[in-house]
Every structure is written in structure tokens, then in C-alpha cells.
């Protein structure tokens, strides 16, 4: 074929058309899958930063309940001092501090505590991306569990979690992914998650997600400064509750909409992004990814059709030179 302008343009036009077709497939809205919906018997945690006193009893209880070794950082190796979530720590309490850090739940010259553990997303990225179904979401309770016996250690879950939760162990030849599983082994025998069980102020509460959401709304409606009763351990456990002045809540519950909603939710007096909880879209990343992937590969129709065309062309173009060609 002569290398002419006409042929060049023909080629360019064909490539452009193919690219345009592919682009249409790529963004076809008809294939879009919506966010997944909250499971019927969803359970979760509500963490209230204004109630937290930073005692870290939940960090210790979590370690014991999940049989995790202490993380030592000091020379004498006498302290369990986890700095953040890790391959050996499933739950931490962190501190926000600014300026003189004199006033609780205040941005300027203030401080606030924050809990970090798995959010148990309604539409989790980790479950969507795991190539071997080692991350699973319980269809009833919505607990996101991890199954090391299936895991290949590819760390796609670590890379894709919008909250930075699953952690991998880089310090062993037989590593595991670790993350909070809402003490599903305790729930299986009628107990509640260890962090909620030991929290002395009810800053971490366990319960049905609907009940936790109602409790969050109640707190938002309470007048700041007035005294009110707060449940401990579980959301309906007012008998064991305590009375305390209502904090200055920001008018939002983190986790209600982020990434299509999460089963762990947070209340705070300090903006969530200052506590390490970023602003996120309401559309889950999993739904965007799956819409795109399944849009391209719907019923494998496109690949099969393309393969048929390729086989026809390859057959036609190789059959005549069978003598000594490849």
C-alpha cells in the first residue's frame, strides 16, 4: 500500500472511529450499577468524638479479643504503643491537637480524639476488588470479613480502600491481611464487639445501623451544653447510660453517605477531614469500577464477537502461505 496522505487519513479515520466506539462503550450509562443497599439486619458502630476521653481501653480490648501481639516502639519494649492501624493493630484512638490544645472538640487551640477501624462499607471496594473472594460482606449483618485461607496477598484491598483500613504484614514470610471484622467471632456467641464492650463513656456504641442512625439524629437535635443521657455498650442500653453535657456537634454524621454509606459512623465537633476522614463522593468507587468493567464485558458478547472476526481474518490471511510461513 503506498504511503500516501489518503491512506494515512483513512487509517486515522478508522482508528478514530474505533476509539470513539470504545469510548461510547466505556462510558455507557445504561450499564451503570447503583450503589449497593444496606443489608436487612445491618449492625454497626457509632463513634462519638465528643464523648471519647482517649483512654484507649478499646485499643487494648481489641488486641486481646483478636489475639494480636502488642506493638512496641520504645527502647525498653515495655509499652504497647501502636501509632496507627497496621498489620498487627485493628483499632486505634488518635489525637487531633492544634495550637495550645487546651479546649476539647475545638478546631483552634483545641483537641479531639478519633477512632480508626474498619468502616464496614455498604458497598466495599475491598470486596469488589478481591480477585479470590477473600473479602466478603455478610448478606444479613453486612459485616465485612477477611478470609486468609483464600487470600493470595495481592494487596489490591489495601491499595483501594478509601479509608486506608486493610493492612498487610510486610515483616513475615507468611503474611496476612488484617482488619477489624467487628468481632464477628464474639457476635457469633452473643457478645458485642470488644471496643464497644469496654468503652467507659459510650463513645463507641454497638447496635443495629437503624438504631445507631436514630441515636445520631437524637444527638444532633439536642441543645449543646444541656445535660443529656448517653447509652453505653449498645445503643438501646440507656439503663447503663450516663449523664453528660451535650457537645457541639457538627451537623453531619460521617458514614451516612460517604462511598454509598458505611456501617461504622462518626459524630464530631471538629471537621472530619482534620481527623483523617476525607470528604468522599456518595457514589461508591466499587459501583463505578464494576459498571465500567461489566459494561465492557457484558455476557462476554463483545469479546466473543471480536474473537470471531479475528479468527476469520487470521484464517484468511494465513491459509495460502502454509508451505513455510508461520
Amino acid at each position, binding site marked *: 500500500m503506498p504511503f500516501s496522505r489518503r491512506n*494515512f487519513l483513512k487509517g*486515522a479515520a478508522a482508528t478514530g472511529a474505533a476509539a470513539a466506539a470504545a469510548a461510547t462503550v466505556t462510558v455507557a450509562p445504561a450499564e451503570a450499577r447503583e450503589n449497593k443497599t444496606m443489608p436487612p439486619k445491618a449492625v454497626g458502630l457509632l463513634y462519638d468524638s465528643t464523648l471519647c476521653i482517649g483512654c484507649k481501653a478499646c485499643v487494648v480490648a481489641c488486641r486481646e479479643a483478636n489475639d494480636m501481639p502488642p506493638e512496641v516502639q520504645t527502647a525498653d519494649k515495655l509499652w504497647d504503643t501502636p501509632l496507627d492501624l497496621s498489620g498487627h493493630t485493628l483499632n486505634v484512638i488518635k489525637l487531633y491537637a492544634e495550637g495550645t490544645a487546651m479546649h476539647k472538640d475545638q478546631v483552634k487551640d483545641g483537641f479531639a480524639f478519633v477512632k480508626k477501624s474498619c468502616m464496614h462499607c455498604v458497598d466495599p471496594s475491598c470486596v469488589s*476488588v478481591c480477585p*479470590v*473472594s477473600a473479602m466478603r460482606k455478610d448478606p444479613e449483618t453486612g459485616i465485612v470479613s477477611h478470609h486468609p485461607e483464600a487470600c493470595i*496477598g495481592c494487596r489490591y484491598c489495601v491499595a483501594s480502600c478509601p479509608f486506608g483500613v486493610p493492612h*498487610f504484614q510486610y515483616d513475615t514470610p507468611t503474611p496476612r491481611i488484617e482488619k477489624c471484622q467487628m468481632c464477628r467471632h464474639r457476635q457469633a456467641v452473643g457478645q458485642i464487639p470488644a471496643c464497644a464492650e469496654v468503652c467507659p463513656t459510650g463513645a463507641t456504641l454497638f447496635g443495629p445501623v437503624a438504631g445507631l442512625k436514630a441515636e445520631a439524629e437524637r444527638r444532633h437535635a439536642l441543645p449543646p451544653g444541656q445535660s443529656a443521657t448517653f447509652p453505653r455498650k449498645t445503643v438501646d442500653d440507656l439503663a447503663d447510660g450516663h449523664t453528660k453535657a451535650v457537645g457541639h456537634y457538627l451537623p453531619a454524621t460521617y458514614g451516612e453517605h460517604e462511598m454509598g454509606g458505611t456501617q461504622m459512623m462518626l459524630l464530631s465537633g471538629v471537621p472530619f477531614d482534620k481527623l*483523617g476522614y476525607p470528604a468522599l463522593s456518595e457514589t461508591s468507587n466499587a459501583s463505578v469500577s464494576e459498571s465500567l468493567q461489566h459494561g465492557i464485558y457484558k455476557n462476554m458478547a463483545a469479546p466473543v464477537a471480536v474473537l470471531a472476526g479475528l479468527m476469520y*481474518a487470521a484464517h484468511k490471511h494465513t491459509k495460502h502461505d502454509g508451505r513455510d510461513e508461520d
Partner: protein
Amino acid sequence: MSKHAPLGGSLVTRTTVIAAALFVLSLVLLAVRFLKGLGAVANINNGYPWGIWVAYDVVIGTAFACGGYAMALLVYILNKGKYHPLVRPALLASMFGYSLGGFSVIFDLGRYWNFWHIMTPGYANPNSVMFEVALCVACYCVVLWLEFTPAFAEKWGGPALKRRLNNVLFVFIALGCLLPTMHQSSLGTLLVVFGQLIHPLWQTRLLPLLFLLSALAMGFSIVIFEATLVTSAYKRPSEARILAFVTRYIVVLMSAYLLLRWGDLAYEGKLGLVFSSGGLSLMFWLENILFALPIVLMGPKANRVDERLQFLSAVSMLLGGGLYRIDAYLVAYGRPGWHYFPSVGELLVTLGIIALEVLAYIVFVKRLPVLHPVHASGETHAVERAPAALTTE
């Protein structure tokens, strides 16, 4: 007589000895990784769980190995017979590139002993883009070795086996064109789920298309790159005239790529970020300049037969495609407070894998019928075959 012949010559040269030494060194480092864990060799961490063993060895490595894919499309699907001498060496490089990409996955997997789960019903998760990539890459590795069997058959099998092979080869050729189309685009789709963790200059739903177009252009570029190196290293006659035709496919593909990438940024209202993203703006511009260079250089007809400009265009395209992938997977990815830069050990392992690829390539072209033989006239076989196509230029 076959149109291909082994180059012959000694296998022990300075290049092969250095390559072998680098590979042995990487094996030592890998032994440490298997005894002590990934962290003992690699700098990857829970903020950057994927390092260069994923971004280079798998993502860039397989894109560099798209020469076989690109040439098979050209010769067997679009029926451009004149490129035939370029097919077998390209397939060979692809075969090694993909096989070693697959091998790299194994040592990057934390729980490699379970790797078979990914293709096992009951474990496999079709929602996972990685499932699709793994399945396609594994199948394509097999297909590449099968596509290359005519070379083995010529050496050891005899004409009967070769004839039988030819009757079914079209199936493998077709698969060899479909599978890379699927997984090279999926290597882009893989990043979509990262959402806001990837800078908006890179995060787009066009990722699969941008990855596919650039992978194809990298495939054509690696053919030019390798042909030029082989010509110079083994003192063979220049293939510049036939490579001139290959360059225009790069021009077309990358024009489409740049149009789509910039059109998407404009459509999404992200054009301002092109200047306002600090170091990332710089990386973005560097990529785009490297992508635009082959278009600028290979646009004028007179330049296309210039061996040096061809080589420069190919290198620019390969660097651009590589940088685009490093940026999308590592530089533009991140969480506050985390840092990653590959360790010396990590880099040496990657270097060892590249060295093994070079070593195997040299052994194969010297011992197996891969390249078209040079005739007394100094022309290779195919140029004799297709004079019309070239003289009408």
C-alpha cells in the same frame, strides 16, 4: 527452506555474562524476600502497597511486550505481509516479557502459595478487574508460546509437524490479538476503583482506552527499538525502510490518545489542573511531550526513513508510556503521610528480570530460527518479497 534462520555465534559474550550475573543477584535478593517477607527487600508499605514490582515488572513490562500483539494485528489481521520479518522477533520479545511479568506476580504476591485460587471457581471473583487481568495474562502467556511453536517445530519437529501447526495457528493468532486488547485496557480499568486516591489528571473512566492505545503504540515502538538494536549489534542491513511504515501507526495511535486525553480533561473541566498541580503538573507535561515527540518527528515524510529519528521516536514513546504508567500507579496515587521510593534491592530485582529477558532473547535468536537471514545482496528476505510496496513510496 524456512524464511528464518538462527544467527549462530558464541553464547558467551560480555553482554550475556553481565546479564546472567544481574539475574543471579536478583535470585539472591528474592531468596531474602521469600525467607523474611516482602518488607526485607522492598520499600512497599500500607500506604503504597504496590511498588515497582507491580508498576514496572507487570504493568510496564507487559506493555513493552506488546510488540507481538501489535505486529500480529498488522500482519495477520490487517494482512500487511511486508512486515513479516518483524513478526517473529517481536513475538519472541513478547513471549519473554509476558512470561517474566507473570513470574514477577508470583514473587510480589504475599501469599503466593494460594495463587491458583484466582482461576478456581468458588474463589474467583468476576467483579474484580484483577481477576480478568490475571486470567487474560495467563492465557496470553500460553498463547504466545504456542504462537512461537513454528520456530521450535522448524528446529526440532520437521515439516509434518509444522504443516499441522499451520492449520490451527490462526486460532492462536486470533486469541493473541484479543487477549492483549482485553488485559492491556484492564490494566487501566484496574485504577478506576481507586477513585480520589489518584490525582484527577490521571483518574478518568477513559483509563482503559488510554492504556490500550498507548500499549499498542508502545508495541510498535518496541519493534522499532529492537530491530534497530539488533541491526546495529549484529551488523545486519538496515530495516529503516520497512520500519518507516510502522512509525505511522504510532502517529495515528498517539494522535487519538492525545485527542481523547485532552478532550476528556476539557469535558470534565479539569484543564486548570494541568498548570495548578505542582510536581504532578510537571509529570503530566513530561508525559505529554514524550507522547507528542513521535508525532512531531514522524509527521514529515522525509524524517520517517531516518534511522536515528525513528529510534528517537520509539524511545520517546516507550519512555512516555512507561512514565504514564508509573505516574498513574505510583506518583499520582497516594494517601496523606505515606511515602514510597523503591529500595536498591527492589530495583536490582527488576533489573535482574530485565537482564534475564535480554539474555533469553540473545540465546533464542542465536540458536533458533527467529530472524530473516541476510542474503549476499545485503537485503533481508522480505524486502525482496515486497518490492512493490516499497518502491511506490
